[in-house]
């Protein structure tokens, strides 16, 4: 996702990471109880995971996150006028890049004189499932995060 932000920045595409809440609280990164703690966790995420996009932090009650569906790692694309034009319940860089390339092409087609009208489409995209990487992420939060995930999903 960082690479997509770099590739499309000069074409008018902004990218942010919006820090929400600890989906898998553990001994090292427990559930959130204050904005100071939330900012500290977000800072650690930036440094440990290497997020180079601007990081924004949601309110402690997750007002923004909840309004958009509360999924732990979803992505949305919004226009300059505040219209939602893409949403995915899980973040996949290939899916996001495919969408952003399409929308930039729409702008080109409009500039060249095509008259375009929006329509709705549903599509099932596919992402890599890297369980080892996922468990490594859980371990970062603490052994309890791993135990609870295994208990919930095996």
């Amino acid at each position, binding site marked *: 996702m960082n690479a997509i932000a770099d590739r499309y920045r000069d074409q008018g*595409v902004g990218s942010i990471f919006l820090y929400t809440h600890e989906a898998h609280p553990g001994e090292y990164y427990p559930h959130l109880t204050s904005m100071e703690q939330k900012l500290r966790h977000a800072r650690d995420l930036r440094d440990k995971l290497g997020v180079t996009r601007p990081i924004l932090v949601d309110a402690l009650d997750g007002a923004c996150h909840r309004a958009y569906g509360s999924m732990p790692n979803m992505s949305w694309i919004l226009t300059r006028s505040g219209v939602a034009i893409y949403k995915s319940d899980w973040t996949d860089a290939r899916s996001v890049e495919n969408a952003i390339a399409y929308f930039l092409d729409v702008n080109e087609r409009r500039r060249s004189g095509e008259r375009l009208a929006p329509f709705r489409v549903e599509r099932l995209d596919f992402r890599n499932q890297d369980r080892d990487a996922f468990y490594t992420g859980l371990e970062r939060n603490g052994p309890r995060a791993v135990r609870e995930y295994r208990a919930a999903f095996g």
Partner: protein
Amino acid sequence: MTNSDLLTRYNYDEFVPAKFESWLRFDHSPPLGGPAPDFPLWHLDPAGRGASSGRETSLSAIWSHHTYTIVEFGSFT
């Protein structure tokens, strides 16, 4: 639900279905083609020398700067 209850429920202290499942509401998220909800957000990184973390902005202030804005929601896991 009081604000305190909401804070506790949203920031659940253990990953058990009774505490996390009710938050997975993508099917009830705003439809595409309509206005995106706007909320206050806080910058993690200072804007410049002398500035501090936690400067308030809004999602609309961000999306209004770009033709398109990609928003990835997440945390450590």
